[in-house]
């Protein structure tokens, strides 16, 4: 404020005299607005009703989550027993689901983590390669390629699940390591969708990185691979994180392809395993399931809340033209 060369008349620039005047006013008795008596009606009209809406919505949003938490802490196993919220607290059901010989929960958890992480990293890598070429190079078929990617993403993979199943079982006859009932095979199927909406999101972001950076590096003698790996990938790190997270969450939630391709119980993912576990909520060990749900949800929710600003930014950046 007190820099001597500020331009008078602009918002930030105040003349020294004005500063002095301001100082004088501050030191004098501060201006206190006449205090209006609190009026409930006026408060409700102004912001109170908003708080009422907010409280209603928070209750609507939270009660299923509180229900999950409460039944996971309930040592009793049944669905009925879970209805009295937080009536009993213990970690028995957590112990039960982790130690039960019939429920390979730890294996599901690890499978999900491994499959989702590998898929996320590989998706980001394949998508970034494609986005780089679309953003930085001009070649025949570029527009066609971009449009194809937009159109192909319209067709969800799960519609072709029969064909995927038959293809993977044929591959499994020849190469058991990547066929049916293997994690590698499942990851490969997921990578079929690596180009798609992800590439499109990344492409938009790549375009915001000035091409002059590439050119400067080129003049300094860097090849395209070096520019891509050491310069561009670092500059677009935020969108890479967003795409990785979206892909991770998407894979954790994916049920159809995983349920069809993974046959052995200990090879399945959380989505497949937990769903089969409570296929009949009435007879299932409900609190063991909710304990599993809490453990499955915590990492995802933490990651999500940590990065939610970027996710929302990424989503809108990709769609808003």
């Amino acid at each position: 404020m007190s820099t001597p060369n500020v331009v008078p008349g602009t918002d930030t620039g105040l003349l020294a005299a004005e500063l002095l005047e301001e100082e004088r006013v501050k030191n004098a008795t501060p201006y206190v607005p006449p205090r209006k008596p609190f009026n409930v009606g006026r408060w409700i009209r102004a912001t109170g009703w908003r708080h009422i809406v907010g409280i209603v919505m928070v209750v609507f949003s939270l009660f299923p989550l509180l229900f999950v938490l409460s039944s996971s802490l309930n040592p009793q196993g049944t669905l009925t027993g879970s209805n009295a919220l937080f009536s009993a607290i213990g970690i028995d059901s957590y112990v039960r689901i982790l130690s039960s010989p019939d429920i390979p929960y730890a294996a599901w958890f690890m499978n999900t983590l491994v499959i989702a992480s590998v898929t996320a990293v590989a998706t980001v890598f394949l998508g970034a390669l494609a986005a780089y070429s679309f953003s930085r190079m001009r070649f025949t078929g570029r527009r066609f390629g971009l449009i194809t990617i937009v159109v192909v993403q319209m067709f969800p993979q799960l519609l072709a699940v029969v064909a995927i199943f038959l293809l993977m079982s044929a591959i499994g006859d020849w190469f058991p390591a990547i066929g049916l009932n293997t994690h590698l095979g499942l990851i490969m199927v997921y990578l079929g969708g690596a180009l798609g909406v992800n590439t499109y999101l990344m492409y938009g972001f790549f375009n915001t990185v000035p091409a002059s950076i590439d050119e400067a590096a080129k003049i300094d003698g860097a090849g395209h691979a070096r520019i891509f790996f050491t310069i561009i990938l670092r500059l677009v790190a935020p969108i890479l994180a967003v795409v990785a997270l979206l892909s991770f969450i998407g894979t954790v939630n994916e049920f159809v392809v995983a349920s069809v391709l993974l046959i052995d119980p200990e090879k399945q993912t959380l989505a497949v395993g937990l769903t089969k576990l409570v296929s009949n909520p009435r007879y299932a060990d409900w609190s063991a399931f909710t304990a599993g749900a809490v453990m499955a949800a915590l990492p995802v929710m933490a990651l999500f809340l940590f990065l939610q600003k970027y996710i929302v930014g990424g989503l809108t950046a990709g769609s808003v033209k």
Partner: protein
Amino acid sequence: MIDDDVRTDPKPTRRQKQAARMAEAASGGWRTLLVKIVLLGIVDAIAIYGIFVLLLHDQWLVIGVIAVVTVIVNWIYFSRTQLPAKYLTPGVIFLILFQVFVLGYTAYIGFTNYGTGHNGSKEQAVSALMSSALERVPDSPTLQVSVVDQAGTLGLLVTEPDGDVLVGTNDSPLEQVDNPQMDGDKAVGADGWTTLSFAEVIARTDQITSLAVPASDDPNDGAVRTPDGQSGYLYVSNLQYDAEAGTMTDVTTGVVYTDTGVGAFTADDGEQLLPGWQIVIGWENFGRAFTEESIRGPLVYVTIWTFVFAAVSVATTFFLGLFLAIVFNDMRMKGRKYYRVLMILPYAFPSFLSALVWAGMMNESFGFINQVLLGGASVPWLTDPTLAKVSILIVNLWLGYPYMFLVCTGALQSIPDELTEAATVDGAKPWAIFRLIKLPLLLVSIAPLLISSFAFNFNNFNLIYMLTNGGPRDSSTSIAVGHTDILISMVYKVAFTGQTRDYGLASAFSIIIFLVVAIIAIISFRKTRALEELN
């Protein structure tokens, strides 16, 4: 969005291209080259290994495809001109195999009778039928056998009463063995085969008892089986196969089953021998979808419900999200941040879990909603056809409104305040300002998200499958379908649940959905002019 104006330089001349190539080569260095050669070496090694394995299975078409793709990949990465292809190839290979190819394959399966009872070739069907009808030949001599192994494949080493020694597996008929190792008059080993020890025989009993080694190339000659790994007996099938006439004859009943072109041996009275085999049946699956009343009925109401579900889900989540965005967009309100975080939580909770949890809470007799919130009522939330649909919409509202709330908040905040001020000065009421100024501006940026949200819900398998499993079941149809099934969950059920799996019909359904989705996509693209912007 796709901005071609970034580089409008004229096309580079030949000399410029040459210079660029030289610069590129100079910048690479030997390390880059080494990495490239090692990576390509790994790819080629895998490809060659794959080709060898496929040679064993006589998969000539697949071998050809792998060979061509490998050559193209090598050419792309060694050539100096194919720069964009170097970046696109890895993703495109997966895209072509697992999106484009499976789409075409789905179309092909839609024209076949593939499914339970029809999932192999005719030869496989013949051998499966014959071996399922095997019966021990009465008074046949006991053969001395040893169980042998060759690269994981079990075989039987058979010593015939006349001293001949033969070996064979499930897939290769018995053949004479030269200089076997004998123990007394029983052969115990042969070159190239490992004889199983007694302990191994015990450990692999299941595999050994399922062995049926054909006596000769003619399936009618029967097969040798062993119950204990020590002695074998000749079994012949009750079915007699006549390859020339293409008929199966049941020798016990005398019924003749002929190949009538429907993918199974069929008797005159229409009785079929299953398993049959896979054939192309043309438009029959599509025809069934549109003409067979017990399939067309469900297909029609499932399609209608799918559209209603997707549209109502988008509308309810959008309006609730928009309403909340407006409510919480007031600067005077305290604690907006906390409300916002708490309301995002349903969106952060993994959606497959939410659906399962709601299924528990909406349970008619034990669920939280009936027992606690409604004080012991028994509202059939998930078991009444109409109420189940309402429940699905409520749960999807819970799942989806936070997303709409977030994007609407973002879009609202990006609308400049000056517009509101100007309109206020001109005497506009708040409602008019919202309807005539803010909403249209908001829709410009939200419309693409609404379309993608519609497309997502159109195929929102998880919610339907985990909340109601499509139920309550519609008992009036021949396929496994319920009142709340959407198209995609119906496909899954037809293909993968229940006693009979009808891959052909499921794929035909998939193709129909593909077409519906494609039409919606084209129309919505036209409307939002997204494709125009691409050009």
